[in-house]
């Protein structure tokens, strides 16, 4: 059978093709829409105000600067123009609010929008990967929530459907619809939507985060990097905004610039960043709750922005357990879900549980998603298959070699530039020792296991230690690579990947025994290890 030259076998309906965007240019009278199934609905009118405020947010800084620097002379004409613009944009928003409708019918979620170019988009319900609800303080003020429907269209921007403002009743109705129709296709009778506002905590509570855990999670979060960035951002903002008269005395005082002053500054900034990291973790993960209802997980978290996501168990591709440097000594880790949803991986998306004792991980997984509850995920438990001893030298050498090479490059570059002594890179060699240690740890931590239920566990270390659990049939592809040096030592690198748009779905075992690697390559396949029937090319 010949397939047309741009073949889309029926499997190709998945992923990229699942979300069909049609720009419908003919004018369709949408005023009186058909009333089959779940009648088209509009968003909550608060959407107009919410999006207006959101778009104003970008103007806050220029406005503030204008008011502070421009003093009092306000132009009548300026105000008039601003007023007209504001009114116009509100009008436009109201019109686009009017045009935006969504409906669930015929096993699809349909969204129509667009003022001039009408856009109609339909998402087959079975392609939905997760349904997330979130509410910011502003949305809470208007008693609305934001519902995001995640599909598996990896990377394709705008393929997820976001309903920015729904009333609580509408939101829970929609969620019910989405899950009900998936189980029972066809226009069923509308499920009575009981409008329990926001605390529609259904399902068995698997675990909730205690305040103590939240605090520990914040202290060990390692989110200092982003916090520092934020701090510097705030600093710059203050620099722009505040008049020079405030800064100048400070600068005068700082003239007695000393090592001690610098150290104090470093400590203060570091402490500030750490406190900020603590605060952001507490705000993000406050009130974390993991529930399970039948074949789906409900995850809710956040103090200011309350988020809820619903993930069908069948959509979970892998579970990763990350032990950060600060957490590993205390036996603590973060559990994450890898799935094809969550295109942009933010720090908190896909978190199954933010802080758990590694000893408890198995029992938590047993209750949440038993398919991934491999006993060997616990580093204190059964030992994984280790790498061969001859791999250790390579781990250490490659880690130290990288540092040494970097130092050499710095030296060479310094030698070329007049005025800088060539040996400036030499102190970098001090890092060789920590690098060697890191290499050694990398070797010791790496390992793999396959259990009787075809769960694959792979552990590796980059900075923190990461353990990934998946099942054989979730693997999208797998490969073995042998470099020239590896070939001499009969080592090889095994890699595999599950579908994960966040990029966390890769597993790698570097410097595995060559025989083991090829053996695993076969064992992880679909068929029995030795497939003698090999069909030749057509």
């Amino acid at each position: 059978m010949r397939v047309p030259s741009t073949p889309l076998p029926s499997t190709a309906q998945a992923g990229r093709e699942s979300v069909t965007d049609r720009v419908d240019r003919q004018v369709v009278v949408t005023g009186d829409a058909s009333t089959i199934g779940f009648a088209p609905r509009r968003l909550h009118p608060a959407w107009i105000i919410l999006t207006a405020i959101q778009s104003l947010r970008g103007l806050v800084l220029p406005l503030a600067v204008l008011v502070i620097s421009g003093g009092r002379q306000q132009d009548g004409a300026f105000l008039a123009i601003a007023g007209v613009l504001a009114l116009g944009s509100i009008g436009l928003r109201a019109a686009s609010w009017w045009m935006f409708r969504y409906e669930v019918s015929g096993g699809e979620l349909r969204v129509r929008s667009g003022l001039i170019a009408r856009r109609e988009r339909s998402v087959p319900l079975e392609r939905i990967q997760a349904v997330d609800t979130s509410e910011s303080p502003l949305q809470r003020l208007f008693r609305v929530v934001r519902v995001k429907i995640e599909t598996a269209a990896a990377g394709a921007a705008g393929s997820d459907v976001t309903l920015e403002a729904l009333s609580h009743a509408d939101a829970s109705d929609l969620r019910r619809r989405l899950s009900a129709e998936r189980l029972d296709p066809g226009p069923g009778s509308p499920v009575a939507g009981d409008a329990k506002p926001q605390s529609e905590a259904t399902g068995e509570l698997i675990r909730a985060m205690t305040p103590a855990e939240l605090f520990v999670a914040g202290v060990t979060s390692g989110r200092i990097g982003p916090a520092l960035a934020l701090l510097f951002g705030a600093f710059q903002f203050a620099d722009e905004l505040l008049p020079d008269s405030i800064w100048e005395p400070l600068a005068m005082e700082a003239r007695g610039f000393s090592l001690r002053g610098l150290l104090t500054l470093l400590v203060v900034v570091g402490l500030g960043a750490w406190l900020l990291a603590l605060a952001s973790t507490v705000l993000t993960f406050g009130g974390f709750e993991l529930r399970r209802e039948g074949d789906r997980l409900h995850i809710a978290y956040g103090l200011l922005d309350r988020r809820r996501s619903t993930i069908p168990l069948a959509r979970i591709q892998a579970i990763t357990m990350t032990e950060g440097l600060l957490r590993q000594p205390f036996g603590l880790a973060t559990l994450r879900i890898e799935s094809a949803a969550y295109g942009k991986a933010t720090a908190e998306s896909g978190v199954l549980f933010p802080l758990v004792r590694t000893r408890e991980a198995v029992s938590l997984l047993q209750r949440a998603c038993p398919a991934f509850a491999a006993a060997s995920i616990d580093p204190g438990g059964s030992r994984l298959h280790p790498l061969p001893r001859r791999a250790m030298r390579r781990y250490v050498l490659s880690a130290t070699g990288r540092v040494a090479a970097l130092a050499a490059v710095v030296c060479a570059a310094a030698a070329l530039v007049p005025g800088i002594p060539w040996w400036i890179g030499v102190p970098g060699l001090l890092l060789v020792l920590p690098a060697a240690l890191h290499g050694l740890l990398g070797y010791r931590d790496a390992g793999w296991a396959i259990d009787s239920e075809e769960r694959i566990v792979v552990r590796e270390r980059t900075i923190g230690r990461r353990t990934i659990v998946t099942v054989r049939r979730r693997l999208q592809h797998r490969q073995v690579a042998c470099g020239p040096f590896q070939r001499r030592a009969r080592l090889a690198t095994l890699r595999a990947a599950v579908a994960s748009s966040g990029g966390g779905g890769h597993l790698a075992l570097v410097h595995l025994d060559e025989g083991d690697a090829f053996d695993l390559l076969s064992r992880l396949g679909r068929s029995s290890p030795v497939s003698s029937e090999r069909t030749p090319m057509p």
Partner: protein
Amino acid sequence: MRVEHSFEQRLSLSSRPAPREHLDPKARTLWRLSGLLSAAPLVLLCAGAVWVLLRLDVHPALAVAPVIAACVAALVGVILVPDLQYRHWRYEIGEEEVDLQYGLVTITRTLIPMARIQHVDTRRGPLERRFGLASVILYTAAGASEIPALAGGVADSVRDRIAALANTRDDL
């Protein structure tokens, strides 16, 4: 006594013999040509850099270094790389899996289950068309893989075979 096998022998002795099919022999010429085309701007750029360095009174030996490096890289890219690539490239379209083996220095063996393939494309670039060649590109939910430089007819049949074998079930 244990017999020492070469890597190639070990590969074919492993539980899964190396894939059988080779690329089209014209692949080497194609890669040489495209290597030449992509190296040309680099060499020109380096020549420009030499000119600038000479004007800045840098030692001539130091100044000529980049252009020599670029020429060596271009020669390697045009002569050695296509040869090695061609020698190492193997593929096989099995019932259950697509089996690829390729690499320059590091040899990589990739297996893609048919059931995971989302869709498959053939692509003919302008240069490939000149040679009557085409590439087959396989997409899974975790990325794409390519079988380059197949004769046009072979590429079409490979594509159709994969499309027919790719399972319709989707449990993403």
